[in-house]
């Protein structure tokens, strides 16, 4: 395998963003879990004390959501719905069981990833808005009590949805070996593209390591 022929899948800026979101997201989710399920209050201890977790959670949350939204904007063009996507969705069983000959060819992202993308867009916007509304002592005093109650509910629902999709994201990324390396170092092999995202190879803007360097 020649490194020069590797294909650039994630630019450096996006990679930094991604891992920054992972780090802050970990803090946000672990502290948030501590408030959501009181039996898991000990998880909040990653911030020291429950009081500290309460203080850190909204800040870590903003540090997760804002770069996440920057990233989502940067990946927007890869996530438009394409013509093969519906057939791919219908063949989801073959995807899961690796019946590769039956999977329709797709581009940079598969429709599953596009659904994930959309969910992250919606939930991160909702989490940011509702999170600010319930943020004591800075912003909450400006809102009506009933508005805050709904904000708390929507915040919780979106957090659960996001967490479930994060689990799906993590599971798929570790299942399809090479994806994590792609997100870490930016490059994937030609064979990997051919197998998982064949239409990506037709992309006129495709860059390989060799072309980048020269």
């Amino acid at each position, binding site marked *: *395998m*020649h490194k020069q022929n590797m294909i650039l899948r994630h630019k450096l800026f996006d990679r930094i963003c991604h891992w920054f979101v992972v780090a802050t997201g970990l803090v946000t989710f672990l502290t948030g879990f501590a*408030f*959501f*399920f*009181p*039996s898991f*209050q000990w998880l909040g201890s990653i911030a020291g004390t*429950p*009081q500290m*977790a*309460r203080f850190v959670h909204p800040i870590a949350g903003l540090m997760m959501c804002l770069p996440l939204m920057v990233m989502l904007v940067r990946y927007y063009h890869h996530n438009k719905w394409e013509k093969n996507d519906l057939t791919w969705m219908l063949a989801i069983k073959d995807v*899961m*069981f*690796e019946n590769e000959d039956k999977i329709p060819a797709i581009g940079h992202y598969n429709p599953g990833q596009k659904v994930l993308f959309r969910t992250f867009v919606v939930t991160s916007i909702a989490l940011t808005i509702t999170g600010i509304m*319930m943020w*004591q*002592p800075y912003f*909450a005093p400006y809102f009506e*009590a*009933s508005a*805050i*109650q*709904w904000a*708390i*509910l929507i915040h*919780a*629902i979106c957090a*659960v949805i996001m*967490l*479930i999709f994060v*689990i*799906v994201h993590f*599971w798929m990324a570790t*299942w*399809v*070996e*090479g994806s994590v390396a792609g997100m870490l170092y930016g490059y994937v*092999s*030609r*064979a*990997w593209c051919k*197998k*998982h995202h064949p239409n990506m190879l037709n992309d006129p803007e495709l860059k390989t390591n060799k072309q980048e360097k020269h």
Partner: protein
Amino acid sequence: MSAQDIILSSGTSELTPAAQVRRKLSKVAKLFDATKCNGCKACQVSCSEWNDLRAPVGSFQGSYQNPMDLSSECWTLMKYQEVEENNKLNWRFAHSACMHCDDPACLTACSTKGAIVQRANGVVDFDSDKCTGCGYCVSACPFDVPRLDPIDQKAYKCTMCSDRIQVGQEPACVKSCITGALKYGTREDMLFIADLRIKELRKRGYVNAGLYNPEGVGGTGMIMILHDINQPQNYGLPADPKTSVPIKLWQDVVKPLGAAGIIATVAVACLHRITVGRNLVEEDEPAQFDHTHSDKSDKE
């Protein structure tokens, strides 16, 4: 009062209940008779004295009420509601403090274990040491009672002077009430006294006199005799207080469903991993590996 006297605690569920009452205690209550109150503020002052609270001196806002609102430094406030009846201005004095709900919305909303407890005698109390300052109780309370302190960011409210009542005394506000508008005792006794008083008031022409003891929160530990029970808003009281829909949905539906969803997703992921296994790519240039192989076989 010991930990065994706690019958409800925030941040627990049926699976992890609070310490259960071992001694049967009768529920206590404060009875406020608005028809006897003359707005002297003795209760407000004695509350601040006993609990050593010093609300900042406010500015004149066109009302005898002072301070203008409850705060972490003001747990009992005489509200001077101005009501116009038959072209006449009337004051409706309202002794506003925690209502000590039987089914407290603040406790339901609080996710911090033990930050809000209900004692066997019905008193709802905050353990400020455990409070994280999330303010969920502040937005949940239908009576708008608990407040966060600007300095330590913890929630505070009337404790019904738990420290006094556990040694057999009545709350400070009751002790200092000069007109007998405030009474304290077992809930049963207070309901009985209220009943007699309301009958008397009705006979004297207050046909709408009645007891404010709202069902929506399971009844309260502070019950109030009002001139007109159909007009609780004249006293700044909500007509139908209860734990709001979003808070119930959040605690009773979203949490268990969320837990189920998260566990199910993780379970499916694990199952998929051990059944379908790794999704490896066969690289089309395995030359290097072949090379090392032949090297090895040479040596063998």
